Each structure stands twice: as structure tokens, then as C-alpha cells.
């Protein structure tokens, strides 16, 4: 039975597949898949080096603080960062008093609700609060940035490239794809998936943010710093993960070497 029905089923599926293949191939020859503006003009992220690259990489705390400052002064107008509580900022090297002050002075206040009167109100943030949600009335939906560097391929380089990648739409693109002109209210950016992003270039001029540690705040520097900061928000346990990893690998290497010797010893009379 199996030896009769088996081959029949096999031939049936193979025939159906070759039929699909034939139909698809004919279609492809009749009307080849059209090229698109995205296929021709989308760019992979730029090459950027970060201190946290590689198995030994660590965060550069002054850089994270600068990146946080960029987030606070620029991005936080539109983007929330809901996975991060103010207390987490201690990881960047701020002391308790500084964390308290950052929370207290944060522009968007924490919401309160009085169950006796039903009144909604506001209060200052405390270190235990998460960074409050922001609401954005403009075009498009600014995503929460907490995990953005893990939610995109080559995230840190992507964020850097996106922020430094705004240009005018190339003439060659408009010539080849006249229908693909950037619509009103959107901005051309070859690093963005569909080339036209609703976010206006957030970092436009050198010195837009005044760094307190003396680093020159060029657009490239600010973009790199905020990309580093957003890598920390996505993976705050990265340093501990790598440190633990080396200890685990060291232990396993020793244990495996011993296991190998034990195995050789036990099998020595058997070959």
C-alpha cells in the first residue's frame, strides 16, 4: 500500500509544483517584476563604530549621558521611552540626587487621579516613575524608542544613519519614478524603509544641544550619542551579559577539557 500510494502522492505534489513553477515562470517572462524606487534607492545603514561593539564592548557612560541629553531636549518632544524609569538612569553614572532632580524637573508631569473627587491632576515625577508618555499631534506616529535599536536590523547604526541621512530627493529618482515624489508632509530619507518618513529631521544644526562635558555637538556626534543611549535603553543589561558570558565560557572550556580527558582515558582500551 505505502509503496503504491507513496510514489503517487509524491508525483502528485511534484506535478502541482511544476505547474505552479510553469505558471510563475511564464508570468515572469511576460511581465518581469517591475523595479521600484525603494529597490533602487534604499540604503543599508552606514558603517559606524561604537564602544559597545563586539564581545568585549562596554558602554561609554559620558556618551550615554550626552545621548540622554539629546533625547531629553529633542526627541522627547515626540517620542516616549516607556520601558525606562528615572531610577534606571543611575546606570548612566548619575547619583541619587541627580536622578531625583532629573525626575522632578521633567517637562511632562506624572498624571494623578483623585478617586474621591474624580479629578485628574499632575505631580512631579519621582525616580520610581517611568518616563511619562508623550502625545504627538503632527503627521505620523512616533514609535516608543525604548527598544528601537533591537527592533531594526543593525539598530544602533540604523538610528545614526536615519538621523544623519536626510537629503533632497535625487533627481535620478524623480526622473525614473515620476510618481514617487516625496508627498507633502513627508521627508526624503534613503535609510527609511519606504524612503519617505513623517519625522522632520530632528537634528539639523551643530550646537543644537549644548553638551556640558566639552564634547563638540556636531550633528554627527549628537546622532551617535543618542544612538548609543538608545542601545542602552534597549539592552540595559548588556555589560552584565557579556561579563557573565566570559565567566561561563571560561568554566565550560575547563569543564569540557576535563570531560574530553576523561572520555579519552575511559576509551583508551577500546580502539
Amino acid at each position, binding site marked *: 500500500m505505502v509503496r503504491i500510494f507513496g510514489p503517487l502522492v*509524491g508525483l502528485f505534489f511534484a506535478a502541482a509544483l*511544476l505547474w505552479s513553477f510553469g505558471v510563475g515562470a511564464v508570468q515572469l517572462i511576460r511581465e518581469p517584476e517591475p523595479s521600484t524606487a525603494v529597490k533602487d534607492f534604499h540604503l543599508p545603514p552606514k558603517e559606524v563604530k561604537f564602544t559597545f561593539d563586539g564581545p568585549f564592548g562596554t558602554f561609554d557612560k559620558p556618551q550615554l549621558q550626552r545621548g540622554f541629553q539629546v533625547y531629553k531636549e529633542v526627541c522627547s518632544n515626540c517620542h516616549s521611552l516607556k520601558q525606562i524609569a528615572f531610577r534606571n538612569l543611575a546606570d548612566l553614572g548619575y547619583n541619587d540626587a541627580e536622578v531625583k532632580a532629573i525626575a522632578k524637573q521633567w517637562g511632562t508631569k506624572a498624571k494623578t487621579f483623585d478617586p474621591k473627587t474624580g479629578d485628574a491632576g499632575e505631580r512631579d515625577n519621582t525616580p520610581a516613575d517611568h518616563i511619562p508618555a508623550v502625545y504627538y499631534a503632527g503627521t505620523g506616529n512616533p514609535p516608543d524608542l525604548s527598544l528601537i535599536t533591537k527592533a531594526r536590523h543593525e539598530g544602533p547604526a540604523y538610528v545614526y544613519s536615519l538621523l544623519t541621512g536626510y537629503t533632497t530627493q535625487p533627481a535620478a529618482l524623480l526622473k525614473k519614478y515620476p510618481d514617487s515624489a516625496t508627498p507633502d508632509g513627508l521627508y526624503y530619507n534613503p535609510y527609511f524603509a519606504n524612503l519617505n518618513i513623517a519625522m522632520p529631521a530632528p537634528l539639523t544644526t551643530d550646537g543644537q544641544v549644548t553638551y556640558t562635558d566639552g564634547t563638540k555637538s556636531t550633528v554627527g556626534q549628537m546622532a551617535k550619542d543618542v544612538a548609543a543611549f538608545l542601545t542602552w535603553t534597549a539592552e540595559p543589561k548588556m555589560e552584565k551579559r557579556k561579563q557573565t558570558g566570559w565567566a561561563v565560557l571560561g568554566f565550560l572550556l575547563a*569543564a569540557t577539557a576535563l570531560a574530553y580527558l576523561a*572520555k579519552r582515558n575511559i576509551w583508551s582500551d577500546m580502539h
Partner: protein
Amino acid sequence: MSFPWAKHYKPSHPLMVWLDEKLPLPRFVHGAIGGGYPVPRNLNYFWNFGVLAGFCLVLQIATGVILAMHYAANSGVAFDSVEHIMRDVNWGWMLRYGHANGASAFFVVVYIHIFRGFFYSSYKAPREMIWLLGVTIFLLMMATAFMGYVLPWGQMSFWGAKVITGLFSAIPIVGEPLQQWLLGGFAPDNAALNRFFSLHFLLPFVIAGVIILHIWALHIPGSSNPTGIDVKQESDTVPFHPYYTAKDGFGLGVFLLIYAAFVFFMPNALGHPDNYIAANPMSTPAHIVPEWYFWPFYAILRAFTADFLFIPAKLMGVLAMFSAILCWFFLPWLDTSPVRSGHYRPLFRKFFYILVLDVLVLGFCGGSPAETKYVLISQIASAYYFLHFLVILPVVSSIEKPEPLPFSITESVLGTDAAATA
């Protein structure tokens, strides 16, 4: 199972004698994985993967049970509860990365284990039942992994669940009601998430049960071996302990080194970035792809693009995808060659290597966007896949002339066997 020369369990300590009378658990262990279980002396490292698969299951249960203590199966908070595990739970990041990469490791190990079975025809008599239970375990693993991937409730979780449960709607007449019944709604939602969590917790224990049957069935004929010939005499075997406990220990070390490299240094390399975006029913991802271990089957599903003999393409795809695994159940009866090991089957061996290549190509296509060129490649590769199992294997086993087999396992290891000339 026991060969006549299997060592019997002899407790010496009075406590062990007492225990042996009341509950002979040590006797059981001795016979199952101890000195009382004779195993062919010539097993190569491909025979390590069964124990490694068992280890992976233990690893998944251990990390999974602790994750479940902190996870919240509610579509409103599931995504954030996973981030809570990553950020606020002590060692939570390690548990979660360990569990996610553990699933991948489990599939790597089981794929090697299965392809070991293909090459050495481990499915042949008298080991058919071991094989049938193995394929059952694989199906259960796929269901478990699929439902586990839904739990973090990211974009790929949601859309993956939608696509896969959508497959049921291809079944004529009952399809749509069936899909709604499975999901508890029209699309994946809180009801679906809750039942997936419940089943994802349950199924590994079902798998554990089937593994017990798998190993029970294994112990009746005993392990096969790279020559594929039967054990004849005591010199063909060694006791499982200490010989294979030592070899498995070393294998486990190597496995753990690779596994740890992933968990600690590239924990997201095998995942999809979109699953770090919370599920959003209003926004479809550009490419919906499952986890890598489903790619070959996903490629087969998508390869059917034209209706065939009035059967809708979608239904054909679903039938083929399930048949791609179900056909393994019939291997013991499709491959009729009396020789087991691929080492002595020149023609079979060539087709085996083509199959390996074919499945890799299918995997590559399944992970690529559904563009025409990849679809065309996967159509050819899928056709070969079915032809291999259902047509080529039966034909090859009837026309092939196998190479001469060694006299015994002992001879294959030592070059000579006194029993051969006696």
C-alpha cells in the same frame, strides 16, 4: 532490552539492597543508562544528539517554568511583562535569552538527530516504533515552539499566529469556523494568547512522556550503529556507563560552549527584530517570516501559487506542508533496502547529500521575502523534496547494489574479528 551479557545490577550497600526491594529505581537506571545497558562500541558523534535533545528539553522546562512565574498572559501587558523580565527580574535576561536560544538549539540538535536517522536509516526494522515516536515528538515540538513564539506578543508573534491559524481556513467548508474556534475569535487576541500559554506550558510535558516511550522502544532492539549491522557478540558492545556517559559528557560540553556563545554574545542573532515591536493588529509587517527552524516548511507552503486540478493553491500548500513531515512516518516502508547504513549504499548516499542541500535551499527561500525568484527556486526544491522521499527512496532501494558489509562491529573497529575466521 538486554543482550545475554548485560551486567546485572548488584546492590552492595545495605541501604541500596533495601531500596532495591522496595522501589528498584537504581536497578532501572542501571539498566537504562548505566553499566547494565550494552551499546555498540562504534557509535560516532552523531549518536550524541539524542542525549543532547533530552538535555535541551530539560533546559527549556527549567527556564520556561521560571519565566512563567513572571510572565503575564494578557494581550494588554504580555509584551511589557517580557520587558519586565529582561530588565527587572534578577537574571531575567539570562532566562529569557536562554529559553529563546534554547528553542533554536533544540531544533538544531533534533534536525541533526533526524538527519542522522535518514543517513543511517535508523527508521528501519526493528526500530520503526522508535522512529514513529520520534516524528511525533518533532510534530509536538513544532506546535510548542509556534505557540511559545506567540507569547511575547510582538509583531511577529501576532502576525505569525494570524498566518498559521489562517492556514486552517483553507480547509473547505469547516475551515473558517475551525479557525475561529481555535483562536476563540476572528483574529488572534487575548483568548488566543491565553490558550497558547496554557498549551505551551503543557506540551513539553507531553513531549517528555513521548520521549519516555521513544527510549523505551529504543531499549528493546538497542541502539543501531554506523555500520548498521546487528550486534552479534559481547565484543561488539561496551556498557553505556562509563563509556557513553563519558562521551556524552564531552559532547554536552561542546554543545554548551556554542549555546553559551549565542546566549551571552549574540542573543538576538536568530530572532527577528520586528518581535521587539509590540503587536499591532493595524500594521502589517513588510515580511512575515516564522522562526528559522520553520523556514523549509514555510517555503513549501508558499511554493504552491497556482490552483491545481481545481484544488485551490492555498489548500495545496497547506496539504503539502503537513505532508512534508507526515511522509516521514512512512519511511520504514518506503525504503526497502536491507542495508541500513548509508556508508554501504553508494547511490542512496548521493541522493542523501542532495536532500541535505535541498532542505538548506528550502530554508533559505523560506526565510527570504516572497519574491518571484525565491518562489520559483522553492518550487523546484519542494518538488525534489517530495520526489526524494516518496519516489527516489523506493526506487533506489530496489535498484541499488550495496557494498559488502563488515562481518561484525568488532571487525569494523579493529580490522579483524577472531569470530570471523573461527
